[in-house]
């Protein structure tokens, strides 16, 4: 009896120890060393389509496919296989994760024909960094030839708006040249330029002109240089010291020429000194720190901030305010406009910066372009209003404003 009990006990223990061997799952597990069991291959995508990508330079083909029936169960990724012949050899053009059914192949050359097939891949990675894959491939489709288009139709709406804006600008320029008086509303910030420089002249202190931290490829910097020319002319006439610290070397070169010409125009080329326009540093906060130091030491009576500014805007404006200077600012960065409004005496908001040159010069062609710009803005407002009304009645034509 005792022996039987002992035998039963031993048998139970052995069975219990062997139980885990019977509880294997089908989930992918890490393989050790060379153990590579036979792997199930997912079914290939049932259909594939490939066509030339529209509105491009002929370097792309759009490939789309129906998901493999095993997409959820087995597929780990899809491979887009490309070849120049229907029989191969095929190379991997790209991969997507499961669930995705489109791919844009940007590795093709214009005018050459290509064949495609899609492989649904089931991959198991082993601990020694090798992997075992099962693949199910679709049929081969092709040939498809990528073609370069001569016009990007997705940008047709931009072209139309651009032509309308340009036509308006040119029309009003012609009107202005023909002698018609064009009304431009008062811009307080620009009117204050002369007064600000006059104040500096009376106090015998400097005028600082800060043209922003952007380079010459930014239109705001060019607009700033235009205003600098005007400021330099007034300073030259009044014999007021003008200091222009700049953040970019190309801006230094351009600003120097502009100031030199301005001094020459009013008959004071001898008063111009090259070091009036000087480079400080490209670094944003280094530039702000340098200007702050100059302002606190020199205590200018007037400061102009014109151009592209970022986080340093408020640092500069507050320091100028502490120094007691009258400050006029204008920037094309919407995020910085509130800071300038809070800290400066006058702020040119948005396109007023670009209107400044026309406003100051009062030249007919420049005023005409201002009117044209306003006309285009009026058209935009009308379009927004009409589309809003249409959208309220369920007609969603917002896509005509879409750009890509």
């Amino acid at each position, binding site marked *: 009896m005792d022996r039987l009990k002992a035998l039963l006990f031993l048998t139970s223990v052995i069975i219990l120890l062997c139980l885990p061997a019977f509880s294997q799952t089908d989930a992918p597990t890490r393989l050790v060393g060379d153990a590579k069991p036979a792997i199930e291959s997912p079914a290939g995508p049932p259909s594939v389509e490939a066509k030339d990508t529209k509105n491009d330079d002929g370097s792309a083909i759009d490939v789309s496919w129906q998901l493999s029936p095993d997409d959820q169960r087995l597929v780990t990724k899809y491979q887009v296989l490309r070849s120049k012949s229907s029989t191969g050899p095929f190379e991997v053009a790209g991969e997507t994760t499961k669930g995705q059914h489109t791919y844009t192949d940007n590795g093709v050359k214009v005018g050459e024909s290509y064949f495609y097939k899609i492989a649904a891949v089931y991959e198991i990675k082993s601990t020694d960094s090798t992997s075992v894959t099962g693949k199910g491939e679709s049929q081969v489709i092709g040939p498809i030839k990528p073609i370069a288009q001569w016009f990007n139709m997705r940008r047709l709406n931009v072209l139309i708006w651009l032509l309308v804006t340009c036509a308006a600008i040119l029309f009003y320029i012609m009107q202005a040249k023909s002698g018609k008086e064009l009304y431009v509303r008062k811009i307080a910030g620009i009117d204050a330029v002369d007064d600000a420089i006059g104040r500096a002249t009376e106090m015998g202190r400097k005028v600082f002109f800060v043209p922003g931290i952007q380079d010459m490829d930014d239109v705001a910097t*060019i607009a700033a240089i235009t205003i600098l020319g005007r400021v330099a002319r007034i300073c030259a006439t009044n014999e007021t010291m003008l200091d222009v610290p700049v953040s970019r070397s190309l801006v230094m*070169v351009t600003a120097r020429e502009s100031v030199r010409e301005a001094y020459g125009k009013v008959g004071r080329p001898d008063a111009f000194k090259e070091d009036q326009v000087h480079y400080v540093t490209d670094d944003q906060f280094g530039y702000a720190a340098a200007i702050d130091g100059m302002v606190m030491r020199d205590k200018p009576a007037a400061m102009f901030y014109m151009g592209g500014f970022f986080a340093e805007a408020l640092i500069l404006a507050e320091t100028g305010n502490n120094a007691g200077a009258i400050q006029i600012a204008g920037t094309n960065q919407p995020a910085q406009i509130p800071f300038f409004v809070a800290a400066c005496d006058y702020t040119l908001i948005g396109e007023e910066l670009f209107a400044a040159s026309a406003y100051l010069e009062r030249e007919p062609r420049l005023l005409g372009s201002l009117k044209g710009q306003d006309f285009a803005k009026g058209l935009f407002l009308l379009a927004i209003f009409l589309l809003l009304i249409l959208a309220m009645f369920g007609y969603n034509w917002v896509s005509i404003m879409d750009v890509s």
Partner: protein
Amino acid sequence: MKREIPLIITFVAGVAFVLQYFIPHYPFNRFENIFSDWFSIVGAFAIWLGALSLMKLCLLNISKKSSDWPISLLIIVSFLAIVIAGAIDGFHGLNNVPATSFRDPGTNFDWLYQKVYTPLSSTMFAILAFFVASASYRAFRARNTAATLLLFSAFFVMIGRVPVGDYLSGWLPERMQLSHWANWLMAFPNTAGQRAVMIGIALGTVSTSLRIILGIERSHLEG
């Protein structure tokens, strides 16, 4: 010709850039890349102009013993320190196998960057916090209707964007809570204003660019 040549170059480059935006076909698709490469190369060489101008000005200040000559001396010392540190690390790194860069961690250049430049930059940025407070103290005053509206907007956004707003108004229905008001102000009035300013700036940019391309605007060339 001194004025005409820049105008011709501006016109050709401007038109080319406009065309490449609409025409994807070769060779127009190459314009943007080519011009941006040229701009980068010209800009890189132009840095020397700026650096030499800065050094010249500083040396002049030092020689004349003008009022801020110690600052000019500091600029020259800092400039040389970082250039020499980078050069030494660069040459040393070239001798390593594989070659390392002067910017790699552990180099003198990296030490100067991490321990000197980064704290200085961060300090300047941190000054904004104080300046925002003093600007707010001065600017947000109920002088007129518009200023009062600005004042209340600032109040709601400032208090609604921090947890204190929810802490104080958590007992109210969700639509009455301060964070809801702050989000509404950011999502609607602010967005509307930002869009309006952006449209205006875009149109101003188009107009100014057209004037520059056509040579109507020449003040940046001739003062």
